[in-house]
């Protein structure tokens, strides 16, 4: 029996783009990986429900049209109204439709040990730290979001903070998609914190209201000994968009990575985080909140890999689903044989505001060491009736009471963000979204 593979329109558009012309810049650097990624797209297409990690997020059916890779245009674009981190003093690196936009950026002045390159400028001659220090994302063999990115990407940023340096302000990576035509924007990021460095890295992902596009970002992060990275992402894409993000983090000894993602926008969002604790005494926290309504679908897939001893990992996801929205959380923790004295905590909680909303959670522990403390839990439920009555009995109207409880629910996860100004923005965002 032969099975004929029929490609979806989205897959066909990608395959046609592969044929149209290989992007050769960077071939000397990652040509082999790019060739493999192209072959994977041509053969395997998009991930689908028969792949275990994608069983809830079948991109073959969820991406229902052609979204060819974007041709960076550089058209006039006003993105001021989408400035979600406006009240935080920070530097900004802007990308519109996947293209780096120096004109819309507010770049660091070179102080604070910041080295920053547009990826396009260094594709053919990457600095040593970039060429040698990165490449974990490729090692994740067959990872479909990464393959899509590797096959087509030409834009992005390489950012490095020198040893012992702490830049005076956070740096924001700002993504805007105009969706002026249906297309896929692809960007790639390399972030390296050298020994003892510290940085707050912000990301905002927005798009023109109700426009259809696919946004794909792949980020590789290396946090060296004693360095600390706080990484906060606010995803508020167009409600018709597809958001595909993939973050790889390596955490060395005594280093800290704290990632937080607020997922509020996009029709379909898939966030993947692969974190490897590679040095003793390292700490990782990957947390987030969902604010979903309508037919929104958001899926987070985490893999926390304890490779060595005496590290900690924490994950807390607080997910609110209204209407027909669907939230998914998949969290896998691996504790390798050498990783004694590991402490791992994982919790995912769904709050369902409608009978039709759905929350699926799949915690997974693979523990090969014996002296470890790992806990995980998942809950799902609707608003607590006793709390609602208590608030209403004090004169707080039903909707306002709901808003208070929902904001308190996601607020518990937002607490994880250490930057007070950013935390306030996220909290206000949650309250406003719920009131709208």
């Amino acid at each position, binding site marked *: 029996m032969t099975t004929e593979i029929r490609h979806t329109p989205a897959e066909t558009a990608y395959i046609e783009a592969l044929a149209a012309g290989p992007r050769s810049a960077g071939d000397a650097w990652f040509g082999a990986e790019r060739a493999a990624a192209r072959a994977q797209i041509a053969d395997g297409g998009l991930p689908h429900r028969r792949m275990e990690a994608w069983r809830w997020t079948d991109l073959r059916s969820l991406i229902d049209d052609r979204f060819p890779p974007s041709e960076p245009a550089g058209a006039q674009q006003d993105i001021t109204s989408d400035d979600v981190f406006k009240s935080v003093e920070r530097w900004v690196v802007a990308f519109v439709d996947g293209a780096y936009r120096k004109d819309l950026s507010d770049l660091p002045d070179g102080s604070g040990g910041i080295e920053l390159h547009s990826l396009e400028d260094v594709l053919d001659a990457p600095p040593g730290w970039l060429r040698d220090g990165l490449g974990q994302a490729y090692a994740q063999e067959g990872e479909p979001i990464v393959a899509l990115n590797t096959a087509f990407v030409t834009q992005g940023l390489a950012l490095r903070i020198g040893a012992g340096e702490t830049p005076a302000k956070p740096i924001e990576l700002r993504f805007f998609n105009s969706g002026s035509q249906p297309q896929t924007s692809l960007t790639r990021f390399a972030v390296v914190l050298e020994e003892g460095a510290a940085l707050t890295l912000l990301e905002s992902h927005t798009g023109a209201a109700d426009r259809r596009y696919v946004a794909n970002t792949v980020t590789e992060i290396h946090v060296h000994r004693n360095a600390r990275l706080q990484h906060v992402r606010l995803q508020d894409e167009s409600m018709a968009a597809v958001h595909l993000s993939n973050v790889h983090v390596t955490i060395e000894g005594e280093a800290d990575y704290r990632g937080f993602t607020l997922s509020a926008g996009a029709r379909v969002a898939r966030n993947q985080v692969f974190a490897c604790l590679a040095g003793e005494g390292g700490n990782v926290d990957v947390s987030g909140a969902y604010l979903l309504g309508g037919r929104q679908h958001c899926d987070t897939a985490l893999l926390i890999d304890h490779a060595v001893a005496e590290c900690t990992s924490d994950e807390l996801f607080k997910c609110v689903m209204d209407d027909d929205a669907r939230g998914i959380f998949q969290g896998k923790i691996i504790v390798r044989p050498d990783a004694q004295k590991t402490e791992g905590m994982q919790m995912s909680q769904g709050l369902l505001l409608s009978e039709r909303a759905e929350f699926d959670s799949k915690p997974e522990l693979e523990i090969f060491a014996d002296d470890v403390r790992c806990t995980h839990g998942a809950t799902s439920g609707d608003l607590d*009736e*006793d*709390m609602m*009555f*208590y*608030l*209403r*009995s*004090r*004169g*707080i*109207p*039903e909707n*306002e*009471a709901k808003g*208070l*409880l929902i*904001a*308190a*629910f996601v*607020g*518990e996860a937002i607490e994880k963000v250490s930057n007070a100004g950013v935390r306030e923005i996220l909290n206000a965002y949650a309250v406003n979204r719920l009131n709208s």
Partner: protein
Amino acid sequence: MLEIKNLHVEIEGKPILRGIDLEIGAGEVHAIMGPNGSGKSTLSHVIAGRGGYEVTEGSILFNGEDLFDMEPEERAAAGVFLAFQYPIEIPGVATMTFLKTALNAQRRTRGEGELSTPEFMKLVREKSDALKISQDMLRRSVNVGFSGGEKKRAEVLQMAVLGPSLCVLDETDSGLDIDALRVVADGVNALRGPERGMIVITHYQRLLNYIVPDKVHVLSGGRIVRSGGKELALELEESGYAAYEADAA
């Protein structure tokens, strides 16, 4: 101000209140005493408007208005307040935020202007000092990590800040030591006035030494089986509820 007539209430088909008649005038304090399970909390919940109860007969009028036509928040804005027997913990909502939201929501509903933050802070400070409630407690989440006594004091603080005209206190004395009982009773007594009615629900006579009622009712088996003056409470202290439980059965 409050007229309860022939009130019958069921929970999941099981009769709990079986014909309550009770009238509270402005300025009066009524005590309701009775054994556990006699329906005291059910009565207080039905007055405040909690769901899950089926009123099969009877009515409650508050200042002439049918309470059953009003949502819990509307009853609150109209002046009904219930101090819960078991106050609810609400993680992530600061007590201060909660109080301010509640007070301003009630004021909006009544067509009064909202209080500014300084006005509100002044009011709360005044009331919380009197009840020996620390500012730190007000910054914490509603009732989370409060001791039993702190929860009861916090209920009385809410009552003092919101200034209702009908106060229903459901076993506000249970779990309090004698010092805490005094503080709470002083707080309640400070609210007594010609415009305000109170229902003080208690299992023990002790509280009524501090909050002296105008009338005492004995609730047993979902019915008021006896009413009298404040001396009835003392009598109950002597004889216990045994006689009434036999009555109800």
